[in-house]
C-alpha cells in the first residue's frame, strides 16, 4: 500500500467511532501493541524530549526501504507513534520526504500535535523526515 492508502485506511478505521473514548481505546490498544524499542536503542541520541512526555525514535534502511522503531512513556502518544510507523515504515526515503501527513488531523487527534502540547510528537514527525533525508543523502554519496 502507498503511504496515502495507509493514511486513508487509518481514517476509515477511526471513522467507525463517534465517541471520543472509543477512539482513545483504539489508540491505547495500538500503543500497547507497539513493539517496544530495545533498551540499547533508548539512547540520548534517539530521545525526543517533550515537556510532558518523551518519545524515542530509531530508523534503519535496508535495500532502500526505511524501517522506523519508536516508543513513548505515555501510551496515547505511543498509539500515535504506532500509527506514524504504520504509515511511514516500509517506504523509500523519497516517498517519505514527499508525504503530506493528513491522517492525524482527519481522525481528530490534531491537539496532540499542537506545539504547546509538547509531547514530542511534532518533533518526532520532523525527525522521521530527517532520517529519510539523511538516508537519501547517504545513498547518493
Amino acid at each position, binding site marked *: 500500500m502507498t503511504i496515502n492508502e495507509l493514511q486513508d485506511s487509518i481514517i476509515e478505521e477511526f471513522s467507525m467511532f463517534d465517541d471520543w*473514548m472509543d477512539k*482513545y481505546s483504539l489508540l*491505547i490498544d495500538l500503543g500497547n501493541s507497539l513493539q517496544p524499542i530495545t533498551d540499547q536503542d533508548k539512547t540520548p541520541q534517539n530521545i525526543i524530549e517533550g515537556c*510532558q*512526555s518523551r518519545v524515542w525514535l530509531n530508523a534503519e534502511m535496508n535495500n532502500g526501504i526505511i524501517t522506523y522503531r519508536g516508543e513513548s*512513556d505515555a*501510551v496515547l502518544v505511543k498509539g500515535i507513534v504506532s500509527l506514524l510507523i504504520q504509515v511511514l515504515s516500509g517506504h523509500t526515503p523519497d516517498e517519505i520526504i514527499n508525504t503530506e501527513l493528513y491522517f492525524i488531523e482527519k481522525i481528530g487527534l490534531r491537539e496532540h500535535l499542537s506545539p504547546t502540547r509538547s*509531547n514530542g510528537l511534532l518533533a518526532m514527525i520532523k525527525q522521521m523526515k530527517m532520517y529519510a533525508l539523511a538516508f537519501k543523502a547517504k545513498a547518493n554519496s
Partner: protein
Amino acid sequence: MNEQELQNIRADFPILQEKIYNKDLIYFDNGATTQKPRCVVEKIEEGYYHLNANIHRGVHFLSQKATEAHEAARTTVAEFLHASKREEIIFTRGTTEAINLVASSFGEAFCHEGDEIIVSVMEHHSNIVPWQMLCERKGLTLRVIPMNEFGELNIDEYKKLLNSRTRIVSVGHVSNVLGTINPVAEIITLAHNQNIPVLVDGAQSVPHIPVNVMELDADFYVFSGHKIYGPTGIGALYGKEKWLNAMPPYQGGGEMISTVTFKKTTYNELPFKFEAGTPDYIGSTALAEALRYVQDIGIEKIAAHEHDLLIYGTQRLMEIEGMRIIGTAKNKSAVISFLVGNIHPYDVGMLLDKLGIAVRTGHHCAQPLIDSLGIAGTVRASFAFYNTKEEIDEFIKALKRVVEMLS
C-alpha cells in the same frame, strides 16, 4: 457554605455552565487560572465603554474618573493584603513580573558578587529563573531549602542556609504542585533575625487563604489577578516602603518620571516610580472588583469550603487502587497532585478532558521539584470555592473509568 450559597456563587460564573464535548464542564485547573464572575467581566466592559481615558496626566473628566478608579483599585489591593500604605502596592502584569521586578531592582541595589539568595525546592519557575538570571549577572549563588517526604520545608536546613552573605529569601506561600502551605511567618522571622528581607510568592495563597502582609512582616508579597477571579495581565507587588524607596526603577518610560532632561532624569515617587508606561487601569479596576467579590463572600468561608473539598477529594481519590498522592503536608491548600500506578499523567489528563474534566498534567512549571521527587510529572486537581463535592464524585467516576482503560 451552605448549598444555596454555593449555587448562588456558581450562578455568578457563566463559564461553569459550558458543555465540553457535550459533557458538563468540571473545572479543576484553578491553580493555573480561575474563572471570572460576571461582575468582573462587566467591570471590564464598563471600563472600556464608560471609563476609558489615559490616567494621571489628563485634565478632562474621563481621565480623572479613570485615574480615580485605578487609584481606588490600589487602595482595595492594599486593604485586601492589609498593607500599611497604598503607596506600597505596585501594579504589575502578575506574579512573574513582580518577582522579576524585585530580582532586578533589589538585586541591582543590594546584591554583589559572592552574595547568596535562598529559594526553596518547591518553587515555581517564576520564583527560580529571575533569581538565577540575577545570580548570573552579578555572580551570586542560589541556595535551596530542601523538603521532607510529605512535601514540607525543612526549617532546620533553612536555618543553616541563612548567613551573612544571604541577601534575600524568596519562597512560595503555597506550593502549586504539592499544595503545602509553607510556614512563611517563621521563615520571615528567622530571616529578619539576621536582617535579611523575604519575598513571598502569593500566587497560590492570596485566592485561597487569608493573607496579612503586616502580620507576616513580609518585605515583599506578590500575586496574580487571574488566579483570584480577576483578569489576566494584572497583578500586584506589595513592598515595604523602605525597600521600594531604596530600589532603582525597574523600567523607564512615562509615568515613572518626575522631570526629564537629556542630562538627567529624576524619578517619580512611590508607587509611580515602578509603573512605567500606561498602566492597565481597566485591569486594575476589574481586579479590585474581583477582590471585593471575594471579600463579600469572605476568604475564611472560602478557605473552609475549599478545605472540605480537599479532605473529601483526597478521601475519594484514595479509593482508587495504586493511588499515590504527591504532597501530604499537614497544612495543605486545596491542590491535589497524584499518580496512579505506572500510568503516565499525560494519558490521564487527555482522557479526563474527553469526559469534560479539566485538570493539569506535567511538571507544573516546577521542574526541579518534580525531578527531586524522581517522577515525570503529576496529574493535578486544584479546587476553587465554586467547586462542589458532586463534581468530585463525577471526577472520581471518570478517573476510575480512565484508569481502567489505561491499566
